[in-house]
């Protein structure tokens, strides 16, 4: 048969992966022989065999490609593959975490003291559901005064979740693992006992001996965590028929548990008739609940964690640790105090934006500093958590739409546009050092509703600062972008919230050719008659977007100590800064809807008039 192959086309191409290309290569190969000439017709027997061969080759190629992809953390897609590779880097994906808060408890009961056991229940309402928060340790409260029948406990930590116990019997086999049956476990609450003895989580393998009572935990199949023990060399091994008890909380809400504010005692405790719970000072709502780590996060965090070796040294370490371990942080910026002018040696500054809201509460800052940073950072370093600076963009949008092409009302279309703006802000901006691109936002607005024909947007920048009352103070505000000033004598592009100065109330800032002035605003009262009570209180650098002022502020009409400064930028694309979060205030942005029919009628009227 080999003599039938008469041409040089019998070199089979082996680089193709696609079914049709593989089959085509096989046909090319067969074209070099005369034994079977019917291979190129869909109904022929040989063609059907070629189908089988090409399908099999394609199947194997696909399988091998997937296999190779799943072997590397960069290209793996299955969570189990990513987790397995992360395991080699000593990384355990973080579990779901229950939201926590500190409560002050006022207890009524009997006896000289009362004991509030671990896992005492408090309930709270979130949405339409009622959820449980549990105390994390057993506490004893002494009577406030003799025979008073009241007891006080301050700063009691409660954590969202349902208390659960799983019991196993060891078979004594090699590599025996005990799977926690729910994927919603909050690993921070896991307590393990073996044969009645409490075991602790293994943290430093160099300190573990053959008799160390430690357990290990890893993510196993179906996203469930597995607990396992030592092998008798590194950690004490369980013996046949040993009873293993795992106690843990199941977090029913994860990150959705954040924000709870009112808590009600919902348990029965010996000697206690009632407990009134109020939120401890420094807390405003429950915090730090988070979802289990996603595959994408594991892919990003596992190599970073390996580089950090469980220590926080570089600024990237701080960033990775906070983003990884603190679920309600959206963006973090860290800088070395030595880079400041004047330098502050031994300090690391951390600016963090929470997922909801603009600033972290004092309790959240304390928790991050105490739990996440101090235990791993260098002893001599003092981490300081500050609020991030925001550069807020206020939009003035004119949106032309055709009401004949939508069933939505004008208000509905406006709401869609406002949502599109908010969505662009949350997904593209809201981080440090991000760039606002006007054309992208305009396209987003145009694509948000089918009836929208076009849109035009003008921008105003807003920065806010806190006033230092009753003293002449320097204020330097930077807008990070050039400000609009095409020529001398151009109208003012700077304005501000009203504030009070000696002798005048409700005055505002404005600019003229590089100088900053104060003028009386609406409702301004004064002892004098001057419309411009203070001239030249500072300078404005249009090219760099910097306003430098000296002000003696005596009061504010608003209850919040915040003065907002508004300016018009020179460009429509805005660059961010490393220390500033750029965001769009979609709520206070103006959206004007123009009906396409109005535009057409207006043009027709103009055209008609022009004919005469």
């Amino acid at each position, binding site marked *: 048969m080999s003599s039938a192959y008469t041409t040089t086309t019998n070199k089979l191409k082996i680089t193709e992966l696609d079914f049709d290309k593989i089959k085509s290569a096989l046909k090319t190969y067969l074209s070099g022989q005369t034994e*079977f000439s019917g291979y190129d*017709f*869909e109904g022929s*027997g040989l063609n059907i*065999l070629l189908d089988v061969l*090409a399908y099999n080759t394609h199947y194997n190629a696909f399988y091998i490609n997937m296999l190779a992809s799943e072997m590397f953390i960069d290209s793996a897609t299955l969570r189990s593959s990513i987790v397995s590779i992360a395991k080699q880097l000593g990384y355990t994906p973080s579990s779901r975490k229950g939201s926590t808060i500190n409560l002050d408890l006022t207890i009524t009961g009997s006896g000289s003291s009362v004991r509030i056991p671990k896992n005492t229940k408090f309930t709270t309402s979130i949405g339409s559901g009622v959820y449980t928060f549990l105390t994390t340790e057993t506490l004893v409260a002494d009577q406030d005064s003799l025979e008073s029948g009241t007891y006080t406990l301050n700063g009691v930590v409660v954590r969202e979740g349902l208390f659960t116990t799983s019991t196993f019997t060891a078979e004594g086999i090699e590599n025996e693992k005990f799977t926690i049956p729910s994927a919603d476990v909050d690993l921070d609450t896991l307590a393990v006992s073996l044969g009645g003895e409490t075991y602790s989580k293994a943290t430093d393998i160099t300190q573990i001996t053959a008799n160390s009572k430690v357990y290990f935990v890893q993510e196993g199949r179906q996203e469930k965590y597995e607990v396992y023990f030592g092998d008798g060399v590194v950690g004490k091994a369980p013996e046949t028929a040993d009873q293993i008890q795992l106690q843990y909380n199941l977090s029913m809400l994860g990150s959705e548990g954040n924000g709870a504010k009112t808590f009600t005692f919902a348990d029965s405790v010996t000697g206690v008739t009632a407990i009134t719970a109020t939120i401890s000072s420094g807390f405003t709502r429950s915090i730090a609940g988070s979802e289990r780590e996603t595959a994408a996060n594991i892919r990003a965090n596992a190599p970073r964690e390996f580089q950090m070796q469980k220590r926080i040294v570089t600024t990237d370490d701080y960033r990775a640790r906070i983003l990884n371990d603190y679920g309600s942080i959206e963006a973090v910026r860290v800088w070395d105090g030595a880079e400041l002018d004047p330098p502050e040696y031994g300090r690391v500054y951390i600016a963090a934006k929470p997922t909801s809201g603009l600033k972290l509460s004092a309790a959240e800052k304390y928790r991050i500093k105490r739990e996440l940073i101090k235990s791993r950072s260098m002893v001599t370093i003092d981490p300081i958590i500050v609020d991030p600076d925001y550069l807020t963009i206020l939009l003035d949008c004119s949106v032309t739409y055709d009401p004949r092409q939508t069933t939505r009302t004008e208000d509905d279309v406006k709401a869609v546009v406002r949502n599109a703006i908010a969505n662009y802000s949350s997904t593209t901006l809201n981080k440090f050092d991000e760039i606002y691109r006007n054309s992208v936002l305009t396209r987003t607005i145009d694509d948000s509703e089918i009836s929208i024909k076009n849109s035009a947007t003008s921008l105003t920048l807003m920065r806010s600062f806190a006033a230092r009352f009753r003293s002449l103070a320097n204020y330097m505000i930077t807008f990070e972008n050039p400000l609009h000033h095409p020529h001398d004598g151009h109208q003012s592009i700077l304005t501000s919230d009203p504030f009070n100065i000696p002798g005048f109330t409700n005055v505002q800032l404005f600019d003229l050719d590089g100088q900053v002035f104060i003028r009386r605003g609406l409702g301004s009262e004064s002892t004098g008659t001057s419309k411009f009570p203070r001239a030249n209180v500072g300078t404005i650098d249009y090219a760099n977007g910097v306003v430098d002022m000296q002000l003696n502020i005596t009061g504010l009409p608003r209850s919040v100590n915040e003065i907002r400064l508004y300016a018009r930028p020179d460009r429509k694309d805005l660059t961010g800064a490393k220390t500033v979060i750029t965001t769009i205030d979609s709520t206070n942005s103006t959206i004007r809807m123009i009906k396409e029919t109005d535009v057409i009628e207006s043009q027709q009227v103009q055209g008609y008039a022009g004919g005469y």
Partner: protein
Amino acid sequence: MPLIKTYNDLDLDFSAHPNTGNISTKKDADAVVRSVRNLLLMNHFDKPFHPEVGSNITRHLFEPMTVATTLRLETDIKNVINNFEPRVRLSEVRVQAVESENGYKISLTFFIVNEEVERQTVFFLERYR
């Protein structure tokens, strides 16, 4: 009458040649007729990645035995041969319902391209279950 071009194909029955023991082959008109039969018995999605190939005529076996079904069978047979068997020029497709046997007698009359002899093949289409 010899064909100008010869066609050789594997016999998917995979029977052994009585003399040589090699797998037997189909040649010329036999190869083409076998190809036509394969196409007729092939359903859509039988061929990997090419769901359009095939006649899908077996679906008609579960329909009421009416004139309309017979006509649809004819149309499907014509389409599959015209679309996927360029070696054949159809003369006639006759589909005859045989109610007593719950099946259709299908008779194809065709020319093989470049051949002057008209050929006919007849087969019976019936349900297995």
